[in-house]
């Protein structure tokens, strides 16, 4: 009912008698399985056997959300059974861990086949939270660490998978929340640890593999301000971070000036210079308008150099106009460029990017060009 990227084949109504017959058999078997699962759950037969039927059905149709709900109903009952009685006995705890592990395996296998199915991600989320509430801290922490590896694997096969990036941020939050050791430290300092540094390194790794990975750039834009706060970075260190990031993105721009992802990160860095940028998004905290002016001038100079080899790259003109209007906003004057320059950049945009003509027309009105 909602398919993506599946090529249309010739009229599907022309099927052979055998294939039609086979399909009818498949339908009958599928409907039988659905009926039996629904009936057993309605009768509250929350057993290992019914759980196996649920597994079979979910393998056939992981989008069937009600069946995932049934699975949680059954598991909830089985887990509390396995933990009732002597809560401290290792022997009693084992089955609960087995149940949890088998669900982690099931969802792992399904995610490899259906990486964009919301319900599978949800269930994994649920089973892990359940595990955390039932098992000891060390085990829970080990499980969440396993999740970080899993999500790295998923992002290795599709580095833009939206669900995987969301899940990664979620897992990181969980790991940051759970104490590193079960026993509280004597001086009562929180034993939690931030993963901002290692996550920042992860984005560097992803970007180095593929400059066009905006998901990684996005995450980086979120991590850097936090990282600087956590490092309690001084003014000079903050400036250095800003300069390093600008240098990194400028190299990237030079490598592929036609890549949107790179320009968006450039836009992010430039937006952090603005006096309107909220504190929690800033890199440097002590910028004067004179500093800002210098940054804008430097960027424009660099971008104009690239322009010499890439006259047909519209992103360059857009960035120049962007810098120019930020420059004008802080009353930088028109030392480094003139309105004639701005007009020529806008003309280039209109010429190179006719799809967005309406936008360029409006921009030229708002800039009085």
């Amino acid at each position, binding site marked *: *009912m*909602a*398919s*993506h*990227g*599946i*090529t*249309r*084949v010739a*009229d*599907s109504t022309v099927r052979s008698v055998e294939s*039609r017959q086979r*399909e*009818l058999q*498949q*339908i009958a078997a*599928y*409907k039988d399985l*659905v009926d039996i699962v*629904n009936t057993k759950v309605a009768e509250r037969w929350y057993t290992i056997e019914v759980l196996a039927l649920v597994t079979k059905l979910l393998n*056939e*149709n992981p*989008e*069937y*959300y*009600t069946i995932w*709900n049934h699975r*949680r109903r059954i598991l909830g009952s089985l887990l509390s059974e396995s933990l009732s009685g002597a809560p401290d006995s290792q022997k009693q705890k084992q089955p609960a861990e087995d149940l949890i592990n088998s669900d982690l395996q099931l969802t792992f296998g399904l995610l490899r086949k259906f990486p964009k199915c*919301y319900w599978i991600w*949800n269930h994994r*989320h*649920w089973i892990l939270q359940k595990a955390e509430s039932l098992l000891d801290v060390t085990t829970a922490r080990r499980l969440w660490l396993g999740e970080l590896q899993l999500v790295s694997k998923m992002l290795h096969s599709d580095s*833009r998978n*939206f669900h995987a*990036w*969301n899940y990664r*941020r979620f897992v990181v939050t969980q790991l940051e929340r759970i104490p590193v050791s079960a026993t509280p430290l004597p001086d009562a300092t929180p034993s939690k640890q931030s993963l901002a540094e290692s996550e920042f390194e992860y984005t560097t790794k992803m970007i180095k593999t593929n400059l*066009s990975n*905006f*998901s990684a750039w*996005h*995450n980086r*834009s*979120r991590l850097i301000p936090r990282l600087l706060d956590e490092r309690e970075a001084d003014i000079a260190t903050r400036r250095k971070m800003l300069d390093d990031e600008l240098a990194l993105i400028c190299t990237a721009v030079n490598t592929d000036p036609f*890549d*949107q*992802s790179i320009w*968006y990160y450039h*836009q*992010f860095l430039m*937006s952090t210079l603005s006096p309107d940028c909220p504190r929690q*998004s800033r890199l440097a905290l002590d910028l004067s308008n004179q500093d800002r002016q210098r940054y804008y001038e430097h960027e424009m100079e660099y971008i104009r150099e690239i322009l010499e080899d890439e006259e047909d790259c519209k992103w360059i003109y857009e960035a120049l106009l962007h810098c120019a209007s930020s420059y004008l906003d802080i009353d930088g004057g028109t030392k480094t460029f003139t309105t004639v320059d701005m007009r020529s950049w806008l003309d280039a945009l209109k010429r190179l990017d*006719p*799809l*967005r*003509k*309406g*936008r360029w*027309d*409006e921009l030229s009105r708002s800039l009085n060009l």
Partner: protein
Amino acid sequence: MSLVSGPGRGGMTDLPEELRLFVDKHVSYIQSLDTRKDELEYWLTEHLRLNGLYWGLTALHLLGHPDALPRHEVVDFVLSCMHESGGFGAAPGHDAHMLYTVSGVQILATLDAFDDLEARVKSGRQRIGQYIADLQDPESGTFAGDEWQEKDTRFLYGALNALSLLGLLHLVNVDKAVEHVQSCANFDGGYGTSPGAESHAGQVFTCLGALTITGRLDLVDKDKLGAWLSERQLKNGGLNGRPEKKEDVCYSWWVLSSLAMLNKVHWIDGKKLASFILHCQDPELGGFADRPGDMVDVFHTVFGIAGLSLLKFPGLAEVDPVYCMPRVVTKRCLGQ
């Protein structure tokens, strides 16, 4: 509210001959959807049945064939998906969830069937409204999809969509919901599924929709977001959902309707987009696919047709970009 108008948009009358809309084919395609019980796919997609009905019915209304599905059968089916709790499942026997509850309300609204609901389910409207309201997280202001507590801006939008159609927005904390939407905003002007998540055209649609319904578009950086949205258009005219991704008819709708909410439809090339959408039709059997030459489905069919309607393609009824429903219906429900 002049959401669909924008300066500088020409009509589609000068499109070449081959770019026709195969209205009759699409109507019979949608009518055929419920007769495919001998296909396994029909059974494997039962969890989308109520959404599918909303997609198909909306497409038919926009195509000017509102009676192509029998009204009483549709109402019967919708009500058979309703639970005691006031929520709707995808089909009879499926659990209640926000996604289907919204579709249920949208279908009843489109068929002007709220009175039928009241006649057959005691305090029906109120019960639906309460089901939705109970899914709001009092702390963050966002909404869960169901009792299992998955949270996402899709559900927040769905809640405000359905509640506004029912005239029951007062049941929830609107300010908190708006606050949550704000916390999902990114530097590029777009929005993600939750705070910190990457901007995504589908989420931009839900967040802008929520802000439009609550009358809080003043919170949006319109130029920045408009720029990001307009960059979704690729050379072939189609729109993608994020930078450096492929074009797709469903994303074309989410981006285009978002531009419409910002009054910036003229920031992209409407003629090229219309041509892209039309190329995604199956001219023989009807329906639209995600991209030219792919398998059609009813999901891409409604978004293709709604996109064409927003582009003022001749012969289509006007669509409301916030609700993806006929404008006459939302006008009636919202008392405009």
